[in-house]
């Protein structure tokens, strides 16, 4: 019987409404049975798919852990084909995409993570992954947003450590971006909630030093030293922070202890020597006698003169015949020569500006020779630091 003949055989009108309740009951029963059957079928099929997905995912994880995110991508993608809602697979795929460096992989990672974020906006892991992605894209607003979400978000295990770790990451990112003010505010936040762990306080102190907040750095190092009084790194860090602030006496104390705690710390040893030189060469230090002050002024003047001459020799500049126009070194030599006869007036009360005049010239000589002949060492370095501190005080 063909279609045409069968359609002709259809009843033109039917009294379906007479048996509506029976029909609806029958249809409902069939629908329920079909629903149950399909539900069981889907459940079994999905379970099988999840098993396959886990197997493939484990393969991918092996590649990822061995530092081959590109090979892991295929497996992660396949795993997601069979278990598309698995957040762990999505997260690992996004991480592998982020680390693979393939063109367009960051966009794809962003789409996976954004989808995850839609479902778990307060999840610490997802927000941290999104923050790292924003870091890759140098997007400070997004990075700040997601790092903060991660810091204040929910973590399944060890929330304090994870939040702290996320904040440290954020601080490093801000420092890379030269956003020091924001980094400092994050550091202040983290330092207030640190547990009594010297390593953590040391890390915070180091970050304070890195953003040149030496006051807070010294406080943080002191915190470390309270917990571990002989911590060489903290002593060295505090000494260097004090040194950078021009507090050479404090620096000398810390650095002396640092060298005692770690005799192999050559950096601290060098800083200590410089600090001692500064302390012994600075004519404006308090609690020194007039004779000692004059001695330091004369020593500084002589040292600067020698530095000028050695720099002129190494730069092949003849300091004797005044040229027109004179070079900076020749000008400084002329001024040095002109000032030399006045040194005998050091004790005189009629020439009260002489110490400042001497030290101004010394500072200019040290700065100019540093510019032309490279960084100084020894007493010259000490004189340069003294002049820098004088400028800071003047300002």
């Amino acid at each position, binding site marked *: 019987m063909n279609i045409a003949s069968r359609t002709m055989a259809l009843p033109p009108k039917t009294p*379906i409404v007479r048996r509506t309740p029976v029909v609806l009951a029958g249809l409902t029963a069939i629908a329920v049975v*079909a629903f149950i059957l*399909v539900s069981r*079928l*889907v459940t079994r099929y999905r379970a099988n798919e999840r098993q396959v997905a886990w197997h493939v995912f484990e393969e991918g994880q092996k590649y990822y852990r061995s530092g081959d995110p590109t090979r892991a991508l295929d497996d992660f993608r396949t795993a997601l084909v069979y278990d598309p809602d698995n957040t762990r697979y999505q997260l690992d795929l996004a991480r592998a995409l982020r680390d693979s460096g393939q063109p367009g992989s960051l966009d794809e990672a962003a789409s996976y993570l954004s989808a995850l974020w839609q479902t778990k906006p307060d999840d610490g892991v997802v927000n941290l992954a999104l923050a790292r992605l924003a870091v890759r894209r140098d997007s400070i607003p997004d990075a700040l947003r997601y790092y903060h979400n991660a810091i204040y978000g929910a973590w399944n295990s060890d929330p304090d450590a994870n939040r702290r770790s996320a904040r440290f990451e954020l601080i490093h990112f801000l420092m890379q971006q030269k956003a020091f003010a924001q980094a400092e505010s994050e550091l202040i936040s983290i330092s207030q909630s640190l547990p009594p762990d010297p390593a953590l306080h040391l890390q915070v102190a180091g970050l304070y030093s890195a953003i040149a907040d030496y006051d807070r750095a010294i406080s943080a190092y002191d915190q470390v030293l309270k917990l571990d009084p002989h911590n060489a790194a903290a002593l060295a860090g505090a000494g260097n922070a004090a040194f950078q602030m021009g507090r050479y006496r404090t620096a000398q104390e810390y650095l002396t202890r640092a060298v005692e705690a770690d005799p192999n710390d050559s950096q601290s040893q060098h800083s200590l020597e410089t600090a001692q030189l500064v302390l012994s060469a600075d004519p404006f230090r308090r609690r020194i006698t007039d004779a000692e002050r004059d001695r330091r002024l004369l020593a500084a003047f002589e040292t600067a003169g020698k530095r000028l001459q050695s720099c002129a020799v190494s730069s092949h500049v003849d300091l004797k015949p005044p040229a027109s126009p004179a070079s900076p070194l020749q000008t400084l030599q002329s001024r040095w020569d002109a000032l030399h006869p006045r040194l005998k007036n050091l004790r005189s009360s009629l020439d009260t500006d002489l110490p400042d005049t001497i030290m101004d010239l010394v500072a200019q000589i040290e700065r100019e020779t540093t510019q032309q002949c490279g960084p100084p060492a020894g007493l010259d370095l000490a004189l340069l630091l003294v002049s820098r501190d004088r400028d800071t005080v003047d300002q």
Partner: protein
Amino acid sequence: MTSRSTPASASAVAPSASPPRPARGNLPRRLARLTLHTDFEEERFFLILAVFIGIFSGLAVVCFRLAIDWSRVALLGLYPHPSPLRLLAAPALVGLLVAVLVIHVFPAVRGSGINQTKAALYIFNGYIPFRSAIGKFLCCALAIGSGQSLGPEDPSLQIGAALASGLGRRLELSREKLRLLAPVGAAAGLAAAFNAPISAVLFVIEEVIGRWSAGILGSVVLSAVSSVVVMRWFLGADAIFRIPVTALVRPAELLAYAALGIVGAFAAIIFAKAICYFRPRLRALPRWTQYLQPAIAGLLIGIIGWLGFPQVMGAGYSSMDQAMHNQFTWQVLAALAGLKILATTLSFVSGTPGGMFAPTLFVGAMLGGSVGLIEQHFFPHLTGTTGTYCLVGMGVLFAAFLRAPMTSVFMVLEVSGNYQIIVPVIIANTVAYVVARSLQPTPIFDVLTRQDGLVLPSLEEQREEEILRVEDAMMPPPALILDAASSLAEAHARIQSLSDTSFLVHMAPSGWNLLRRDDLDRMLKEGKSELTLRSVLPLQQLPILYPDLPLDTAVRPANQFAIIPVVNRANLRHLEGVITRENVLASYNAEPPTTPNLDPSPSTTQ
């Protein structure tokens, strides 16, 4: 509506009437009341049935999706990149099996399924054999799973329609309702397959029903929504793709999307022309070759996969997802678009059952991504992402190839869930639709039905038809219009010099009537010359027409009355003109025939 089901309803109600019998004179009224009640019941039952059709179609589509996934894993393996042996052997051998099944067991399952559903609605009184649902399910699951370049959406549409048709026959619904069930099931099947109820409803209206029909819209919507609910219950509510970030920063960038529309239109034309050219020629080959055609097509597609493009195999949704997320260069995207057109043409013209939706979207996504990347290369300031171009490209191909412009817009909106993309989509789709229609006036599905020897109504052709209106046929107002307050004598004096046989009479305060010359002469002979026209003319006034009405509406009144007044809608007393039966006939005779231009290709029957 009442008259349609009167006999059946009456016969159904009369025997069970046990309450006291009413008076004999009230019987017709009582029967009419019962009939109305029964019709209401049938309408309500039909709506509830639409929900059940949606549920059953949704369940069928869920099983269909699982079957495709299962056959893919079984035939091509676990990983996205199958081994060379599987790539070459699976589609070829399954092609052979599918050919045997199609030729010997399920002859009605060839093609995508859309035209079969449409034919069921317009030709076979809604009859779709249930066997075709089983055949479609099996053959498509095998074909798509083995890597034939076809999609599951159109088969889902036919499976839904076949289920609905079978259910309607089982319930012995009236022929009228049975005819309407096919599109109801089609919408359910498509909505579940595509997880997009609005697009499914629009597509069924645009492509299957072919006209806007308020009577069926409610049932179609109900079935589509219920099937989507069932599908999401089992398979989740996630979109088919991970949707990329989309944004339109500057309106000037719309030009870039318009360019995509032009490129997409040309791709759609190439796609459609290739199918329309090869399909009838392959079908005209000796019967024994039809066993081999799907296998050869499968082998060629396997070779494409083996050469490094396995993405063209199957529906390709995961590749579309990857394209949206910048995983391909523009060269690869362009190659994939071209190879997908080739692969789909091979699969479809070989008679392998399967749908065109997914391949169309695939080609659109790849083409969109490719054009987007090229545009971004030359104009780096463009802010549209590759994903945006892919999404717009999908809509473009949908509009240009399937010629469903409204569906294409809503499909992209539903798939992306992003309203920001609507302006680029509308611009690109409109450009693509207009260019494609100018290059190939007949849509692909209409060409295919005509190749099969069928002529089915098309919404696009209806859109193209020029409608004759009353204003096209009407004459200017007559020189003489009589006033209803005039006496018969006065009227006689005024018409004496005229040769017309009928005259319009303007009634007060409004309305029009007709005075025939012989009636006037008769009344004058009877001595009624002093009476006014108002007093002698019949109470029933002439019907009136408006100039903008379709001429069809004038046919019936023009047949009943010699002359019909055409008045202004804003002022019913203002006569714009008149129309007569002769005017109507003359207008129709002057109109060129609108018979569709049949495709000259060899005619074959599915």
